[in-house]
């Protein structure tokens, strides 16, 4: 296996964890790598830490534009046959790249590969049992609880991304990952390998942990993009849209934005009363 893999790491104020992230890349059993860090306008000493680890790492700075723009800009610079979008606080196990690349080399009809996920906290301690990356569209559409969309878990065939003009949608923030997968599944296949986990860091301060209006509005845009671009198969439209409207409505309730909450809950009910009642009484 001799193909180059590009590791794109969007970095925004990641001083606390980026050292461990980079070290986990440098510790890989698979050595043919290039690391591209896109610094999204960090105001801490992330850049200093990066240069102290290895001053040959390509580090590109940009004005603060969000994680999607950072990933897309990294993809433009990537020379590898394979690409990994690694979050600046996640850690990859030492055979992470080797197992995925080996799979893709031996299965040319697959466009990406993933495995299991261990969620860890600030102190690198496990906080949950094993999860798995989403590898089938049905898992996305059925909102399977033990399946995650985090992009750090996947290695993609670069040509599949380019051929299908796949990038991360700049209009989205926390749901950009999921949206990316919806688009990816249109024409592409994801394979699974065993036991080469991603250690996915869940911080108490992370975006998706705090329910904010911005987060909910992101969900609204996400749903709107899915329906506008016909990314939900007909068979699943009712279930997915009813559920998402329900989630948006419930979130607005949490934020005490009751008028909006009622609006989305009514929409959810009208789309599928059966599902609405199931969700309500779960």
């Amino acid at each position, binding site marked *: 296996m001799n193909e180059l893999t590009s590791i794109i790491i969007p970095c925004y104020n990641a001083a606390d964890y980026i050292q461990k992230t980079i070290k986990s890349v440098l510790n890989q059993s698979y050595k043919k790598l290039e690391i591209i860090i896109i610094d999204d306008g960090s105001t801490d000493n992330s850049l200093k830490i990066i240069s102290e680890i290895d001053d040959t790492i390509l580090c590109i700075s940009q004005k603060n534009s969000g994680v999607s723009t950072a990933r897309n800009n990294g993809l433009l610079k990537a020379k590898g046959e394979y690409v990994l979008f690694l979050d600046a606080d996640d850690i990859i196990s030492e055979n992470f790249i080797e197992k995925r690349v080996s799979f893709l080399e031996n299965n040319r009809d697959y466009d990406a590969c993933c495995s299991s996920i261990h969620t860890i906290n600030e102190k690198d301690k496990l906080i949950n049992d094993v999860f*798995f990356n989403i590898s089938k569209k049905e898992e996305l559409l059925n909102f399977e609880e033990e399946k995650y969309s985090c992009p750090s878990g996947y290695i993609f065939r670069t040509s599949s991304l380019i051929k299908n003009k796949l990038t991360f949608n700049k209009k989205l923030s926390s749901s950009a990952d999921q949206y990316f997968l919806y688009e990816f599944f249109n024409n592409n296949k994801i394979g699974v390998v065993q036991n080469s986990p991603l250690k996915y860091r869940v911080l108490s301060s992370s975006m998706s942990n705090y329910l904010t209006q911005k987060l909910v509005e992101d969900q609204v845009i996400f749903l709107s993009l899915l329906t506008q671009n016909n990314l939900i198969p007909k068979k699943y439209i009712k279930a997915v849209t009813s559920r998402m409207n329900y989630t948006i409505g419930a979130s607005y309730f949490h934020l005490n934005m009751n008028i909006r909450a009622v609006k989305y809950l009514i929409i959810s009910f009208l789309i599928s009363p059966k599902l609405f009642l199931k969700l309500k009484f779960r």
Partner: protein
Amino acid sequence: MCGITGFISSKYKKEDLIKMTTMLKHRGPDAGGYYYNSDLTIGLGHRRLSILDLNSGANQPFQSKCSRYRMVFNGEIYNFKKILNQLQLESNFIPKTSSDTEIVLEAFALWGDSFVNKLNGMFAIAIWDNQLERLSLFRDRVGIKPLYYYQKNNCFAFSSEIKSLVQLVSKNELTIDKTTVSDLLHYGYSIEDNSIYNEIKKIENGTSIIASKGKIIERNHFWKIENKVRKELVSNEPKVIKELDNKITDAVANRMIADVPLGTFLSGGIDSSLITATAQKLSDRPINTFSIGFKDQQQDESKYAKKIAKTLNTNHNELILGEQDAIEQVDKLFDVFDEPFGDSSSIPTLLVCEMAKKQITVALSGDGGDELFLGYGMYKWAERLSNPLLYHLRKPISKSLNVIGNNKYKRGAMVINTPSKKHLKSHIFSQEQYLFSKQEIDNLLVEKNRGNLILETFDVNRKLNPMEAQAFFDLKNYLKDDLLVKVDRSSMFHSLEVRVPLLDHNVVEYALNIDPHLKYKNGEAKYILKQVLYDYLPKKLFDRPKKGFSVPLSKWLKTDLKYLIDNYLSKTNIEQAGIVRFEIVENLIYRYFKGDDFLYNRLWILIQIHRFLEK
């Protein structure tokens, strides 16, 4: 088998190295050695228990032929002769000794870190590279040999036992890990890489680490049990019996190589009987066998061991114990284990090791059989609770069992009352061990602490059935952090080396992929292992329920050991320690003395914890 220590630190000197190494004298009474270089701030220490090549030429720390590397090593490499052949072919190497020590170091010198994949054995290895100024440490695949480390303030130190590290850094530098205390209440042992101290960790099994300038710079897993689970199972019964017998025979044969007297532990159960029978088959003389029995007839299995020994014509040694003999071991436990340890079968294990050491230096033991071949009753619980109907009705069923009232049903009620599917395996384990459930711990602790998480879902190549999954959980946790700890510390306390043929990695990797329906067949646990055994010994010798290797602790804590409850679980002591709520403990003691005997192990682990904190 030995003890190893060392550090990379400018703070500590040779005298510190000597002191920390001397703490392991029990592991290696035959010789001690040191390497210290103040410029490079490296110290390596070794205590030797001579097993192969009894000459001093094989003493450690050992230096490589090229002088670049120095090594301290605890363990045995059973295929060292095969590795030697490879070394001779590739590098014209000529050994100076007939020990495996030299071969291990030269293998590293030639092949680097990947050498570890060639080793078949049990080991904890530390190799210092003078050129790169770094220390490489390796711990064997299953975790048979221990290896702890301390890392703080540009000091990296390691040792076979915690006591050396405590000696080096002093107790003032160490803080109690309260999360581990929560784990101890649930599992009875410290889990994963944790110890009772925040600053001291275990190196995981199947792992190598590199340390330089006082800290870890790299960590790699060279063997993970998950990677050994294959998609396809071996299901052909006659084929499995033959292949399993061959692999066990190879494993036993490899472990019978020693320049000192050797024997086996023979409890009368399936595993030890198979190991003994295989060893006897391979030996042209009667094998020395050792078993202990109790005057309390309910606990005594020694008569079965005796019959088996007579059938195999071994040189059998038996020790029948009274309660006082076992009780006298209790005080020793605290010196043996360095941290609270809830497994009271360490008492008879200490005794059998003490007895065996009078005649032999190496013993073969049957550990691992229950985990590999579905031997424990709790695996049936795992199967029952996988039934969705039983699972969903668990709360009303549990309430009903409690009402029925006797100990057996009350205990069953606690097993069934599992909090969630996600923590089912750890719950089943804790209840089988009569320890605290997570719900009980929430109520018991003064400061809430959920403990560390153990993974209970396994990312493997095929779906494991509920019994297999529970056994896999045990292989990853209970075996490594309880049973093998018990065997290592108890045997090394008496300078006895114990070898575990069923945990030869070839046997483990094969057993993992045997069809579980051959392991548990027609209501019979360890079915396939028994078929192998019945080629050596008649079935009628084993027609009885399985008994563990235990002591009547539930009785003793009410009588001869009651003083432990009075001393360590008093109001003053509990409140001073501030870990658990006295009113809960008081209620437990009251219920125990009123007849809820199954609470004994909860009290036992509380005693262990509070005794440790007092010391």
